[in-house]
Protein backbone atom coordinates (compact mmCIF):
# COMPACT_ATOMS: atom_id res chain seq x y z
CA UNK A 1 0.00 0.00 0.00
CA UNK A 2 2.90 2.37 0.74
CA UNK A 3 4.27 1.89 -2.79
CA UNK A 4 0.82 2.53 -4.23
CA UNK A 5 0.48 5.75 -2.22
CA UNK A 6 3.90 6.87 -3.38
CA UNK A 7 3.00 6.32 -7.03
CA UNK A 8 -0.62 7.35 -7.04
CA UNK A 9 -0.59 10.18 -4.50
CA UNK A 10 3.02 11.26 -4.00
CA UNK A 11 4.00 11.73 -7.64
CA UNK A 12 0.91 13.60 -8.95
CA UNK A 13 0.75 15.80 -5.85
CA UNK A 14 4.46 16.64 -6.06
CA UNK A 15 4.03 17.55 -9.72
CA UNK A 16 1.02 19.73 -8.89
CA UNK A 17 2.89 21.35 -6.01
CA UNK A 18 5.81 22.20 -8.29
CA UNK A 19 3.39 23.76 -10.77
CA UNK A 20 1.81 25.85 -8.02
CA UNK A 21 5.19 26.89 -6.65
CA UNK A 22 6.56 27.91 -10.04
CA UNK A 23 3.46 29.84 -11.10
CA UNK A 24 2.84 31.51 -7.74
CA UNK A 25 6.37 32.35 -6.67
CA UNK A 26 8.37 32.64 -9.86
CA UNK A 27 5.70 34.35 -11.96
CA UNK A 28 4.24 36.25 -9.03
CA UNK A 29 1.24 35.41 -6.87
CA UNK A 30 -1.82 37.45 -7.71
CA UNK A 31 -0.19 39.33 -10.58
CA UNK A 32 -2.57 37.62 -12.97
CA UNK A 33 -5.64 36.46 -11.02
CA UNK A 34 -6.78 34.22 -13.87
CA UNK A 35 -3.44 32.40 -13.78
CA UNK A 36 -3.73 31.86 -10.02
CA UNK A 37 -7.11 30.19 -10.59
CA UNK A 38 -6.02 28.18 -13.63
CA UNK A 39 -3.07 26.73 -11.76
CA UNK A 40 -5.35 25.53 -8.94
CA UNK A 41 -7.68 23.90 -11.51
CA UNK A 42 -4.76 22.14 -13.20
CA UNK A 43 -3.28 21.04 -9.88
CA UNK A 44 -6.55 19.51 -8.60
CA UNK A 45 -7.58 17.95 -11.92
CA UNK A 46 -4.03 16.73 -12.50
CA UNK A 47 -3.87 15.14 -9.05
CA UNK A 48 -7.03 13.11 -9.70
CA UNK A 49 -6.15 12.18 -13.28
CA UNK A 50 -2.49 11.50 -12.51
CA UNK A 51 -3.45 9.26 -9.62
CA UNK A 52 -5.72 7.19 -11.89
CA UNK A 53 -2.99 6.93 -14.53
CA UNK A 54 -0.45 5.76 -11.95
CA UNK A 55 -2.84 3.07 -10.66
CA UNK A 56 -4.62 1.85 -13.80
CA UNK A 57 -2.95 3.40 -16.83
CA UNK A 58 -4.58 5.12 -19.78
CA UNK A 59 -8.07 3.71 -20.37
CA UNK A 60 -9.03 2.80 -23.92
CA UNK A 61 -12.21 3.73 -25.77
CA UNK A 62 -14.74 2.22 -25.62
CA UNK A 63 -14.14 1.74 -21.93
CA UNK A 64 -13.12 -1.79 -20.93
CA UNK A 65 -14.76 -1.24 -17.53
CA UNK A 66 -17.41 1.35 -16.81
CA UNK A 67 -15.69 2.87 -13.79
CA UNK A 68 -12.70 3.88 -15.96
CA UNK A 69 -14.97 6.73 -17.05
CA UNK A 70 -13.98 8.45 -13.81
CA UNK A 71 -10.67 9.37 -15.50
CA UNK A 72 -12.43 10.84 -18.53
CA UNK A 73 -14.74 12.77 -16.22
CA UNK A 74 -11.75 14.14 -14.31
CA UNK A 75 -10.47 15.45 -17.64
CA UNK A 76 -13.85 16.89 -18.65
CA UNK A 77 -14.32 18.61 -15.28
CA UNK A 78 -10.80 20.05 -15.50
CA UNK A 79 -11.52 21.51 -18.94
CA UNK A 80 -14.77 23.00 -17.58
CA UNK A 81 -12.79 24.40 -14.64
CA UNK A 82 -10.28 26.04 -16.97
CA UNK A 83 -13.13 27.75 -18.85
CA UNK A 84 -14.74 28.77 -15.55
CA UNK A 85 -11.47 30.30 -14.35
CA UNK A 86 -11.61 32.70 -17.29
CA UNK A 87 -15.25 33.65 -16.69
CA UNK A 88 -16.00 37.01 -15.08
CA UNK A 89 -16.74 36.70 -11.36
CA UNK A 90 -20.45 37.54 -11.78
CA UNK A 91 -21.10 35.35 -14.81
CA UNK A 92 -23.39 32.91 -13.02
CA UNK A 93 -25.23 31.92 -16.20
CA UNK A 94 -21.95 30.75 -17.73
CA UNK A 95 -21.30 28.61 -14.65
CA UNK A 96 -24.75 27.04 -14.87
CA UNK A 97 -24.06 26.13 -18.51
CA UNK A 98 -20.71 24.61 -17.56
CA UNK A 99 -22.31 22.60 -14.74
CA UNK A 100 -24.97 21.34 -17.13
CA UNK A 101 -22.24 20.32 -19.57
CA UNK A 102 -20.54 18.37 -16.76
CA UNK A 103 -23.85 16.63 -15.98
CA UNK A 104 -24.42 15.70 -19.63
CA UNK A 105 -20.81 14.53 -20.02
CA UNK A 106 -21.13 12.27 -16.98
CA UNK A 107 -24.21 10.58 -18.48
CA UNK A 108 -22.13 9.70 -21.54
CA UNK A 109 -18.71 9.05 -20.00
CA UNK A 110 -19.67 7.46 -16.67
CA UNK A 111 -22.41 4.85 -17.16
CA UNK A 112 -22.19 3.43 -13.64
CA UNK A 113 -23.80 0.05 -12.84
CA UNK A 114 -27.02 0.21 -10.83
CA UNK A 115 -27.09 4.02 -10.97
CA UNK A 116 -29.47 5.96 -13.13
CA UNK A 117 -27.85 8.31 -15.62
CA UNK A 118 -30.08 11.08 -14.30
CA UNK A 119 -28.74 10.67 -10.75
CA UNK A 120 -25.14 10.69 -11.92
CA UNK A 121 -25.73 13.76 -14.11
CA UNK A 122 -27.57 15.75 -11.46
CA UNK A 123 -25.11 14.99 -8.67
CA UNK A 124 -21.98 15.65 -10.76
CA UNK A 125 -23.32 18.85 -12.33
CA UNK A 126 -25.01 20.08 -9.16
CA UNK A 127 -21.93 19.54 -7.00
CA UNK A 128 -19.70 21.29 -9.54
CA UNK A 129 -22.06 24.27 -9.66
CA UNK A 130 -22.47 24.48 -5.89
CA UNK A 131 -18.76 24.38 -5.01
CA UNK A 132 -17.84 26.52 -8.03
CA UNK A 133 -20.25 29.29 -7.04
CA UNK A 134 -19.23 29.08 -3.40
CA UNK A 135 -15.59 29.39 -4.43
CA UNK A 136 -16.13 32.42 -6.65
CA UNK A 137 -18.47 34.11 -4.19
CA UNK A 138 -16.16 33.62 -1.24
CA UNK A 139 -12.61 32.99 -2.46
CA UNK A 140 -9.92 32.51 0.12
CA UNK A 141 -8.94 29.32 1.87
CA UNK A 142 -12.35 28.09 2.97
CA UNK A 143 -13.14 26.02 -0.15
CA UNK A 144 -9.71 24.32 -0.31
CA UNK A 145 -10.05 23.54 3.41
CA UNK A 146 -13.51 22.06 2.80
CA UNK A 147 -12.17 20.15 -0.22
CA UNK A 148 -9.29 18.79 1.80
CA UNK A 149 -11.64 17.40 4.47
CA UNK A 150 -14.33 16.12 2.08
CA UNK A 151 -11.77 14.40 -0.19
CA UNK A 152 -10.05 12.82 2.83
CA UNK A 153 -13.39 11.42 4.06
CA UNK A 154 -14.29 10.11 0.58
CA UNK A 155 -10.83 8.53 0.33
CA UNK A 156 -11.32 6.74 3.65
CA UNK A 157 -14.86 5.62 2.74
CA UNK A 158 -13.64 4.34 -0.64
CA UNK A 159 -10.97 2.18 0.95
CA UNK A 160 -13.54 0.79 3.38
CA UNK A 161 -15.71 -0.01 0.34
CA UNK A 162 -12.80 -1.80 -1.33
CA UNK A 163 -12.06 0.69 -4.13
CA UNK A 164 -8.32 1.26 -3.92
CA UNK A 165 -7.85 3.39 -7.04
CA UNK A 166 -10.77 5.67 -6.15
CA UNK A 167 -9.46 5.98 -2.60
CA UNK A 168 -6.05 7.02 -3.91
CA UNK A 169 -7.63 9.49 -6.34
CA UNK A 170 -9.58 11.14 -3.53
CA UNK A 171 -6.46 11.02 -1.37
CA UNK A 172 -4.49 12.80 -4.08
CA UNK A 173 -7.19 15.50 -4.35
CA UNK A 174 -7.17 15.90 -0.57
CA UNK A 175 -3.38 16.20 -0.45
CA UNK A 176 -3.48 18.68 -3.35
CA UNK A 177 -6.01 20.85 -1.51
CA UNK A 178 -3.69 20.73 1.49
CA UNK A 179 -0.81 21.93 -0.67
CA UNK A 180 -2.97 24.72 -2.13
CA UNK A 181 -3.70 25.87 1.43
CA UNK A 182 -0.07 25.73 2.59
CA UNK A 183 1.51 27.17 -0.55
CA UNK A 184 -1.25 29.78 -0.85
CA UNK A 185 -0.63 30.80 2.72
CA UNK A 186 3.08 31.25 2.15
CA UNK A 187 2.74 32.75 -1.32
CA UNK A 188 -0.05 35.11 -0.40
CA UNK A 189 1.12 35.87 3.09
CA UNK A 190 -1.77 37.16 5.15
CA UNK A 191 -3.71 38.06 2.03
CA UNK A 192 -5.30 34.66 1.47
CA UNK A 193 -8.32 35.92 -0.41
CA UNK A 194 -6.36 35.39 -3.62
CA UNK A 195 -6.26 31.61 -3.15
CA UNK A 196 -9.33 30.94 -5.18
CA UNK A 197 -10.33 28.90 -8.17
CA UNK A 198 -10.73 25.21 -8.74
CA UNK A 199 -14.11 25.13 -7.00
CA UNK A 200 -16.02 23.84 -10.03
CA UNK A 201 -13.33 21.25 -10.70
CA UNK A 202 -13.14 20.25 -7.04
CA UNK A 203 -16.91 19.85 -6.69
CA UNK A 204 -17.22 17.89 -9.93
CA UNK A 205 -14.31 15.55 -9.23
CA UNK A 206 -15.34 14.80 -5.64
CA UNK A 207 -18.91 14.02 -6.76
CA UNK A 208 -17.71 11.75 -9.55
CA UNK A 209 -15.30 9.82 -7.29
CA UNK A 210 -17.90 9.43 -4.51
CA UNK A 211 -20.62 8.33 -6.95
CA UNK A 212 -18.34 5.75 -8.54
CA UNK A 213 -17.15 4.34 -5.19
CA UNK A 214 -20.79 4.17 -4.05
CA UNK A 215 -21.85 2.34 -7.21
CA UNK A 216 -19.26 -0.41 -6.63
CA UNK A 217 -19.82 -0.66 -2.87
CA UNK A 218 -21.76 -3.68 -1.53
CA UNK A 219 -23.39 -1.65 1.26
CA UNK A 220 -20.24 -1.75 3.35
CA UNK A 221 -20.44 2.03 3.68
CA UNK A 222 -23.94 3.36 4.41
CA UNK A 223 -25.41 5.46 1.61
CA UNK A 224 -25.78 8.56 3.76
CA UNK A 225 -22.04 8.61 4.53
CA UNK A 226 -21.18 9.35 0.88
CA UNK A 227 -23.65 12.24 0.76
CA UNK A 228 -22.65 13.69 4.14
CA UNK A 229 -18.93 13.60 3.23
CA UNK A 230 -19.50 16.41 0.74
CA UNK A 231 -22.39 18.17 2.44
CA UNK A 232 -20.17 20.75 4.13
CA UNK A 233 -20.18 22.79 0.92
CA UNK A 234 -23.97 22.93 0.89
CA UNK A 235 -24.03 24.00 4.55
CA UNK A 236 -21.45 26.69 3.84
CA UNK A 237 -23.79 28.17 1.24
CA UNK A 238 -26.10 29.16 4.10
CA UNK A 239 -23.34 31.48 5.29
CA UNK A 240 -23.49 33.29 1.95
CA UNK A 241 -27.12 34.36 2.39
CA UNK A 242 -28.02 37.87 3.57
CA UNK A 243 -25.72 39.80 5.92
CA UNK A 244 -23.64 36.69 6.63
CA UNK A 245 -22.47 36.85 3.02
CA UNK A 246 -20.75 40.17 3.73
CA UNK A 247 -18.87 38.76 6.71
CA UNK A 248 -15.18 38.66 5.79
CA UNK A 249 -11.77 38.30 7.38
CA UNK A 250 -10.15 35.52 9.40
CA UNK A 251 -13.06 34.80 11.78
CA UNK A 252 -15.36 34.35 8.75
CA UNK A 253 -12.85 32.02 7.05
CA UNK A 254 -12.44 29.99 10.25
CA UNK A 255 -16.21 29.62 10.78
CA UNK A 256 -16.77 28.67 7.14
CA UNK A 257 -13.93 26.16 7.31
CA UNK A 258 -15.39 24.59 10.46
CA UNK A 259 -18.82 24.32 8.81
CA UNK A 260 -17.26 22.56 5.82
CA UNK A 261 -14.97 20.28 7.84
CA UNK A 262 -17.55 19.10 10.39
CA UNK A 263 -19.65 16.73 8.19
CA UNK A 264 -16.69 14.74 6.79
CA UNK A 265 -15.14 14.54 10.25
CA UNK A 266 -18.47 13.23 11.61
CA UNK A 267 -18.59 10.55 8.90
CA UNK A 268 -15.07 9.33 9.63
CA UNK A 269 -15.69 9.29 13.40
CA UNK A 270 -19.02 7.46 12.94
CA UNK A 271 -17.42 4.82 10.72
CA UNK A 272 -14.23 4.65 12.75
CA UNK A 273 -14.34 0.89 13.44
CA UNK A 274 -14.69 0.12 9.73
CA UNK A 275 -11.96 2.64 8.95
CA UNK A 276 -9.57 1.02 11.45
CA UNK A 277 -10.29 -2.39 9.96
CA UNK A 278 -9.66 -1.15 6.43
CA UNK A 279 -6.45 0.66 7.30
CA UNK A 280 -5.03 -2.26 9.26
CA UNK A 281 -5.00 -4.59 6.22
Amino acid sequence: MVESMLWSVGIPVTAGGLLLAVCWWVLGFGRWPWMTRIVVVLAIGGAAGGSFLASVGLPGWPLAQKWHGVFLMAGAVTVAGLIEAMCPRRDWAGRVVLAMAIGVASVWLLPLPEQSALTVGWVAGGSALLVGMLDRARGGLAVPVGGWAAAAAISVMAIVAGSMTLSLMAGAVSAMCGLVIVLGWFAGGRVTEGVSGGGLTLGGILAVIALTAWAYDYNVVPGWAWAVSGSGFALACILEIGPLGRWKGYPATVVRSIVMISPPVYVVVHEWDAVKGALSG
Partner: protein
Amino acid sequence: MYRSLLTGIVVLGVLCGTAAMQESKSLQAEVFKIDPVHSTVLFRIHHAGAGRFWGRFNDVAGTVTWPRDDSVAPNFDIRVVVNSVDTGNERLDGTLKGPDFFNTREFEDVSFKSTSAERIRDGHWKVTGDMTMLGVTKPVTAEVEVTGVRGNQVVAKAGWEAWFEINRSDFGMDWGVENGALSDDVKMIVGLEGGIEPGR
Protein backbone atom coordinates in the same frame (compact mmCIF):
# COMPACT_ATOMS: atom_id res chain seq x y z
CA MET B 1 -30.58 -81.36 -28.42
CA TYR B 2 -30.67 -79.09 -31.48
CA ARG B 3 -33.19 -76.82 -29.72
CA SER B 4 -30.90 -76.52 -26.67
CA LEU B 5 -27.88 -75.77 -28.89
CA LEU B 6 -29.85 -73.16 -30.83
CA THR B 7 -31.03 -71.53 -27.62
CA GLY B 8 -27.43 -71.45 -26.35
CA ILE B 9 -26.22 -69.80 -29.54
CA VAL B 10 -28.95 -67.19 -29.38
CA VAL B 11 -28.23 -66.40 -25.71
CA LEU B 12 -24.50 -66.18 -26.43
CA GLY B 13 -25.20 -63.89 -29.39
CA VAL B 14 -27.39 -61.62 -27.30
CA LEU B 15 -24.74 -61.45 -24.54
CA CYS B 16 -21.98 -60.71 -27.03
CA GLY B 17 -24.12 -58.09 -28.70
CA THR B 18 -24.89 -56.42 -25.38
CA ALA B 19 -21.24 -56.44 -24.44
CA ALA B 20 -20.31 -54.98 -27.80
CA MET B 21 -22.93 -52.28 -27.40
CA GLN B 22 -21.61 -51.53 -23.94
CA GLU B 23 -18.06 -51.38 -25.28
CA SER B 24 -19.03 -48.97 -28.05
CA LYS B 25 -21.08 -46.87 -25.57
CA SER B 26 -18.14 -46.49 -23.21
CA LEU B 27 -16.14 -45.01 -26.04
CA GLN B 28 -18.67 -42.25 -26.56
CA ALA B 29 -18.04 -38.95 -24.87
CA GLU B 30 -20.42 -38.25 -22.01
CA VAL B 31 -21.37 -34.97 -20.44
CA PHE B 32 -20.37 -34.73 -16.79
CA LYS B 33 -22.05 -31.95 -14.86
CA ILE B 34 -19.71 -30.21 -12.42
CA ASP B 35 -20.42 -30.93 -8.76
CA PRO B 36 -19.81 -27.57 -7.02
CA VAL B 37 -19.48 -29.20 -3.59
CA HIS B 38 -16.48 -31.27 -4.63
CA SER B 39 -14.91 -28.79 -7.03
CA THR B 40 -12.44 -26.08 -6.11
CA VAL B 41 -10.71 -23.23 -7.89
CA LEU B 42 -7.63 -22.00 -6.07
CA PHE B 43 -5.40 -19.06 -6.94
CA ARG B 44 -2.05 -18.01 -5.57
CA ILE B 45 -0.44 -14.58 -5.87
CA HIS B 46 2.78 -12.97 -4.64
CA HIS B 47 2.12 -10.07 -2.24
CA ALA B 48 4.54 -7.12 -2.03
CA GLY B 49 7.39 -9.32 -3.23
CA ALA B 50 7.20 -11.14 0.10
CA GLY B 51 4.61 -13.81 0.94
CA ARG B 52 2.41 -15.81 -1.38
CA PHE B 53 -1.21 -16.02 -0.37
CA TRP B 54 -4.00 -18.26 -1.54
CA GLY B 55 -7.64 -17.70 -2.23
CA ARG B 56 -10.46 -19.75 -3.70
CA PHE B 57 -13.76 -19.50 -5.50
CA ASN B 58 -16.59 -21.46 -3.91
CA ASP B 59 -19.08 -21.44 -6.78
CA VAL B 60 -18.00 -23.47 -9.81
CA ALA B 61 -20.39 -24.69 -12.51
CA GLY B 62 -20.26 -26.14 -16.02
CA THR B 63 -19.69 -29.39 -17.84
CA VAL B 64 -16.88 -31.69 -18.94
CA THR B 65 -17.48 -33.76 -22.05
CA TRP B 66 -15.27 -36.82 -21.93
CA PRO B 67 -15.24 -40.57 -22.74
CA ARG B 68 -14.49 -42.67 -19.71
CA ASP B 69 -11.71 -44.58 -21.46
CA ASP B 70 -9.85 -41.26 -21.91
CA SER B 71 -9.48 -41.94 -25.63
CA VAL B 72 -10.31 -38.29 -26.28
CA ALA B 73 -9.29 -35.24 -24.25
CA PRO B 74 -11.77 -33.83 -21.75
CA ASN B 75 -13.62 -30.84 -23.16
CA PHE B 76 -14.17 -28.23 -20.49
CA ASP B 77 -16.89 -25.61 -20.36
CA ILE B 78 -16.46 -24.10 -16.90
CA ARG B 79 -17.92 -21.02 -15.23
CA VAL B 80 -16.66 -19.59 -11.94
CA VAL B 81 -18.87 -17.08 -10.11
CA VAL B 82 -16.44 -14.39 -8.98
CA ASN B 83 -18.70 -13.14 -6.20
CA SER B 84 -17.84 -16.40 -4.40
CA VAL B 85 -14.20 -15.38 -3.92
CA ASP B 86 -12.98 -16.42 -0.49
CA THR B 87 -9.61 -15.63 1.06
CA GLY B 88 -10.66 -16.22 4.65
CA ASN B 89 -10.65 -12.46 5.23
CA GLU B 90 -13.93 -10.65 4.67
CA ARG B 91 -12.33 -7.27 4.03
CA LEU B 92 -9.90 -8.68 1.47
CA ASP B 93 -12.80 -10.47 -0.22
CA GLY B 94 -14.57 -7.11 -0.50
CA THR B 95 -11.52 -5.55 -2.12
CA LEU B 96 -11.20 -8.45 -4.58
CA LYS B 97 -14.87 -8.03 -5.55
CA GLY B 98 -14.27 -4.30 -6.08
CA PRO B 99 -13.51 -2.42 -9.29
CA ASP B 100 -9.72 -2.80 -9.03
CA PHE B 101 -9.87 -6.60 -9.23
CA PHE B 102 -12.80 -8.82 -10.28
CA ASN B 103 -15.30 -5.95 -10.58
CA THR B 104 -18.26 -8.14 -9.71
CA ARG B 105 -20.70 -5.28 -10.30
CA GLU B 106 -19.97 -5.53 -14.02
CA PHE B 107 -18.66 -9.05 -14.52
CA GLU B 108 -20.38 -12.01 -12.89
CA ASP B 109 -18.06 -14.81 -13.84
CA VAL B 110 -14.79 -16.07 -15.23
CA SER B 111 -15.18 -18.75 -17.89
CA PHE B 112 -13.02 -21.31 -19.65
CA LYS B 113 -13.90 -23.21 -22.82
CA SER B 114 -11.60 -25.84 -24.36
CA THR B 115 -10.49 -25.30 -27.92
CA SER B 116 -7.81 -27.98 -28.40
CA ALA B 117 -5.83 -30.59 -26.49
CA GLU B 118 -2.70 -32.67 -26.74
CA ARG B 119 -2.02 -35.92 -24.87
CA ILE B 120 1.10 -35.81 -22.70
CA ARG B 121 0.86 -39.38 -21.39
CA ASP B 122 -1.86 -41.66 -20.04
CA GLY B 123 -4.35 -39.62 -18.05
CA HIS B 124 -2.47 -36.37 -18.65
CA TRP B 125 -3.42 -33.72 -21.19
CA LYS B 126 -2.32 -30.28 -22.22
CA VAL B 127 -5.63 -28.48 -22.76
CA THR B 128 -5.81 -25.11 -24.48
CA GLY B 129 -8.91 -22.98 -24.21
CA ASP B 130 -10.34 -19.49 -24.15
CA MET B 131 -10.46 -17.90 -20.73
CA THR B 132 -12.71 -14.86 -20.32
CA MET B 133 -12.21 -12.53 -17.39
CA LEU B 134 -13.29 -8.87 -17.03
CA GLY B 135 -14.75 -9.16 -20.53
CA VAL B 136 -11.37 -10.00 -22.07
CA THR B 137 -10.84 -13.39 -23.75
CA LYS B 138 -7.33 -14.85 -24.00
CA PRO B 139 -6.02 -18.33 -24.81
CA VAL B 140 -4.76 -20.26 -21.81
CA THR B 141 -3.04 -23.64 -21.69
CA ALA B 142 -3.52 -25.87 -18.68
CA GLU B 143 -1.99 -29.19 -17.74
CA VAL B 144 -4.79 -31.57 -16.84
CA GLU B 145 -4.65 -34.85 -14.95
CA VAL B 146 -7.56 -37.26 -15.00
CA THR B 147 -7.74 -38.08 -11.30
CA GLY B 148 -10.26 -40.89 -11.53
CA VAL B 149 -13.54 -42.29 -12.75
CA ARG B 150 -15.99 -44.49 -10.89
CA GLY B 151 -19.47 -45.83 -11.47
CA ASN B 152 -21.54 -47.77 -13.93
CA GLN B 153 -23.56 -47.07 -17.06
CA VAL B 154 -26.25 -45.26 -15.11
CA VAL B 155 -24.44 -43.33 -12.41
CA ALA B 156 -20.83 -42.20 -12.62
CA LYS B 157 -18.38 -39.69 -11.26
CA ALA B 158 -15.09 -38.51 -12.69
CA GLY B 159 -12.44 -36.06 -11.57
CA TRP B 160 -9.83 -33.82 -13.14
CA GLU B 161 -7.16 -31.53 -11.79
CA ALA B 162 -5.75 -28.66 -13.81
CA TRP B 163 -2.98 -26.21 -13.13
CA PHE B 164 -1.84 -23.20 -15.11
CA GLU B 165 -0.56 -19.64 -14.78
CA ILE B 166 -1.95 -16.41 -16.12
CA ASN B 167 -0.75 -12.84 -16.23
CA ARG B 168 -3.71 -10.94 -14.81
CA SER B 169 -2.69 -7.73 -16.59
CA ASP B 170 -3.49 -9.52 -19.89
CA PHE B 171 -7.12 -9.34 -18.79
CA GLY B 172 -6.96 -5.71 -17.65
CA MET B 173 -6.48 -6.43 -13.95
CA ASP B 174 -3.56 -4.07 -13.42
CA TRP B 175 -3.76 -3.04 -9.79
CA GLY B 176 -0.35 -3.17 -8.10
CA VAL B 177 1.48 -4.72 -11.05
CA GLU B 178 3.53 -1.66 -11.91
CA ASN B 179 4.67 -0.91 -8.37
CA GLY B 180 5.10 -4.54 -7.31
CA ALA B 181 2.36 -4.46 -4.66
CA LEU B 182 0.94 -7.65 -6.16
CA SER B 183 2.50 -9.93 -8.73
CA ASP B 184 1.22 -10.04 -12.28
CA ASP B 185 1.47 -13.82 -12.55
CA VAL B 186 -1.16 -15.86 -10.76
CA LYS B 187 -0.99 -19.61 -10.30
CA MET B 188 -4.29 -21.43 -10.65
CA ILE B 189 -5.13 -24.93 -9.45
CA VAL B 190 -8.53 -26.27 -10.39
CA GLY B 191 -9.96 -29.46 -8.94
CA LEU B 192 -13.13 -30.62 -10.66
CA GLU B 193 -15.55 -33.45 -10.02
CA GLY B 194 -18.32 -34.14 -12.47
CA GLY B 195 -21.19 -36.58 -12.40
CA ILE B 196 -23.62 -38.40 -14.63
CA GLU B 197 -26.97 -39.15 -13.07
CA PRO B 198 -30.13 -40.92 -14.26
CA GLY B 199 -32.47 -38.82 -16.32
CA ARG B 200 -29.74 -36.56 -17.63
